[in-house]
């Protein structure tokens, strides 16, 4: 519904603008706004959704601008063809550098992309094919299928049709599992990997897509300006992208469109007031203010307003439902996990040293040991978050120690984290749906499965809430539901009871038993000995990175070495 209102408003405004505000000046603003919006719509997906701070978007605008200028002026190409060639070139360039550049995060990514842009500026200035500092002049008017657009009004509608097409692409991504995956990446890359999301792939895709759209932005702008030189798309233009997306709103594709209009409108206003120099200060201050005080931006503000006027449903009061064991059908065979000679050192510290044990299919195995024994490191080694120095990990006979975390998750190994890792920017249901990422199904089908997982853990009524609105114990259940949505055959739980009260711990124990009954092998790290002794049919004890003992709980607790290292102390402390 909200989406229909937004599309309707967009169409009405875009169609009516040049008819209401007549004259070449407002028309020019409309065209420039459209050109910028073509670029910022793509940038929302990269900066707003995935939180990748790329600071060199204007570099890709340069690629498009020069492609159009050089091909149309010097080689008399058709403008539309030149635009497409420019976009393809920008996407190829983005693709070529995306792999390594997107491994960089935050500030480093910003610096690397800025460096790329500044290199392109230098090349544009120094090279002869670009026309050097003077640039290339005399671009023809844009043409469609060889027919030149004689009026600026026609060009305006062409530009905004392209914007509409980009918005439709953006909305399609937004509504798909990819849109959700991008937001998951922004919140926690670690957790996104555990849900089987290939973070590298989606970052590259969005980087390449936003580069292509930025290039189209460049082409569209220079066909209006009729000239291209190295200063057209300078550092300030990259900043326009960032300000537009942040002020417009990071959360939706519409933020890019609205932001482009706000940025262009503000600039024209300042020119009208004869204060053009103030542009930087005001844009920068707006960016800072929005980030500090209202992170959802202008469109977020509108959305909140709409929700309030529409009255929205009040969230259900009772968040906890009776756990519904029947919600999830028992699966196929549980999996077996075999570790042999697993080692990992950090500098001189041997965090895990030559550890080998088996987790029998269908068992509940507990990994115990004092703090610093290497339990969490071992989890990270099994799940691919840390590389092994030596040893092997076999999952149902398949070696997995060379695989990436998301590949391991996609094999059906679910995990939870000692420090809760939920996606705070997604609803509870969407958090769980991220766990469905490896199943390329219709969204409706995935939604039903995710709801079933929530019902199974007893959170049927919480799906529309933000995870932060839940009690801590319930947040743990959300994480469990996300791992269950993956349909794991092996589930790794890292201290699932930490932070829970007695009643919650009891419910957790029951939940673990019900999960095992689904046909899921469970390996858990836990400190709560009562929980471990009541649940586990197999114990592995670690101490100082080495395996101390391994066997049935009653045998292990009688071993002198174990009592010395761990159980004895624990029981004395409890006494």
């Amino acid at each position: 519904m909200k989406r229909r209102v937004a599309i309707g408003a967009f169409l009405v405004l875009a169609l009516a603008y040049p008819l209401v505000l007549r004259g070449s000046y407002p028309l020019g603003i409309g065209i420039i706004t459209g050109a910028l919006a073509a670029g910022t719509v793509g940038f929302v997906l990269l900066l707003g959704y995935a939180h990748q701070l790329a600071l060199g978007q204007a570099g890709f605008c340069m690629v498009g601008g020069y492609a159009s200028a050089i091909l149309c002026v010097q080689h008399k190409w058709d403008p539309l063809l030149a635009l497409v060639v420019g976009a393809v070139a920008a996407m190829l360039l983005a693709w070529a550098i995306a792999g390594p550049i997107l491994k960089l995060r935050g500030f480093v990514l910003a610096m690397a992309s800025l460096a790329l842009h500044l290199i392109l500026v230098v090349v544009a200035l120094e090279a002869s094919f670009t026309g050097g500092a003077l640039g290339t002049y005399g671009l023809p008017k844009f043409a469609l299928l060889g027919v030149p657009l004689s009026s600026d009004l026609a060009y305006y509608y062409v530009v905004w049709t392209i914007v509409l097409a980009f918005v439709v692409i953006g909305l399609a991504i937004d509504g798909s599992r990819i849109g959700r995956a991008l937001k998951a990446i922004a919140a926690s890359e670690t957790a996104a990997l555990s849900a089987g999301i290939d973070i590298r792939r989606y970052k590259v895709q969005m980087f390449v897509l936003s580069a292509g759209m930025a290039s189209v932005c460049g082409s569209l702008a220079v066909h209006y300006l009729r000239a291209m030189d190295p200063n057209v798309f300078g550092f300030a233009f990259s900043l326009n992208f960032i300000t537009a997306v942040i002020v417009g709103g990071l959360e939706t594709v519409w933020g890019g469109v609205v932001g482009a209009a706000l940025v262009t409108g503000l600039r024209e206003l300042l020119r009208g007031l004869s204060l053009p120099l103030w542009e930087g200060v005001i844009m920068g201050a707006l960016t800072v203010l929005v980030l500090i005080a209202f992170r959802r931006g202008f469109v977020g503000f509108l959305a909140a307003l709409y929700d309030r006027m529409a009255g929205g449903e009040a969230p259900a009061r009772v968040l906890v439902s009776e756990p519904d064991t029947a919600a999830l059908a028992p699966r196929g065979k549980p999996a077996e996990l075999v570790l042999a000679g697993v080692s990992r050192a950090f500098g001189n510290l041997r965090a895990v040293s030559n550890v080998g044990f088996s987790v029998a299919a269908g068992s509940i195995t507990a990994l115990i040991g004092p703090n610093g024994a290497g339990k969490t490191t071992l989890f990270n080694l099994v799940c691919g978050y840390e590389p092994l120095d030596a040893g092997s990990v076999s999952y149902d006979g398949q070696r997995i120690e060379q695989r990436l975390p998301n590949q391991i998750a996609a094999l059906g190994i679910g995990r939870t984290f000692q420090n809760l890792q939920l996606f705070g920017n997604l609803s509870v249901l969407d958090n769980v749906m991220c766990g469905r990422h490896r199943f390329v199904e219709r969204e409706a089908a995935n939604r039903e499965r995710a709801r079933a997982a929530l019902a199974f853990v007893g959170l049927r009524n919480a799906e529309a809430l933000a995870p932060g609105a839940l009690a801590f114990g319930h947040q743990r259940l959300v994480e469990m539901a996300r791992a269950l949505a993956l349909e794991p055959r092996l589930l790794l739980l890292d201290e699932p009871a930490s932070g829970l009260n007695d009643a919650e711990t009891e419910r957790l124990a029951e939940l673990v038993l019900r999960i095992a009954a689904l046909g899921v092998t469970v390996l858990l790290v836990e400190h709560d000995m009562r929980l471990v002794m009541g649940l586990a049919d197999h114990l592995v004890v670690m101490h100082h990175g080495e395996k101390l003992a391994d066997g049935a709980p009653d045998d292990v607790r009688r071993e002198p070495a174990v009592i010395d290292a761990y159980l004895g102390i624990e029981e004395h402390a409890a006494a």
Partner: protein
Amino acid sequence: MDLSVFVQLLLPGLTTGCVYALVALGFVLCANVSGVVNFAQGEYVMLGGVIGASLLAQGMPLAAAIAGATAAGALLGALQERLTLAPVRAAPDFIQITITLGVAVVLRGVALIAFGKDPLSMPGFSGDGVFEVAGAVLPVQSLWVWGASAALLAAVFLFLMHSDAGRAVRACAINRQAARLMGVDAERLTLLVFALAGASAALAGVVVTPIVLANWDAGIAYGLKGFVGAILGNFRSPVVALAGGLGIGVLESFAAGYVSSGYKDAIVYGVLLAYLLARGGVFVFGRAALLSR
């Protein structure tokens, strides 16, 4: 290779390298204490230059102009921290980093409005004379740059090694969380470090202005080149950061002299980009949760 040409390129490279080194040091100090890499670091160099030059042009004595520019850097650094970072301490890295970017834009804009588009110049502190070393001719001001940088570095290192606050900064560099648990007042320390970084960058900006002029849009280049130094030291080692900053200055000078002055920036940034791409993914700093592969 002609020795005098080599020296003629090396020494000016070291002069600008001093500025990059101080910027790099500011990056390292701020990043370790606050967890935020401050995008506005280079802008303080620019501000030092334009403020110092215009104070002098207004008839202030040289020493007062230098002191005024340095104090302005300290004040603005502290203001940036209080007004824009303290309120969002708990926010995700992405938000904090982007805020420092916004602040950089504001500082550039303020400089543009207050001091205008044209580059500002300043006479050399002890005249505009030149001196000769091994066949190379250098402005006397170079000595001021080297001397001021050396004095600043010495002061920073004395501070780090021999004061309580300095020890706390070093503790934060090793483990910020643990340092806080041991009673380090991170709020006060963060403010101090931002003021210090602002002041040293601004001072560097003033002393280098007689050689390179001060321009409102020079901040990005200072920031980006200083950043190279910081990243060579992995945002941990101040010494490597310094060496990296000096090295970038020399590289830039050689690129201009031996290759092409037009392409010198492209070469420096190309080296930065190649280095980042080659080492991609292994940087551990800021609050980013990093995977090891």
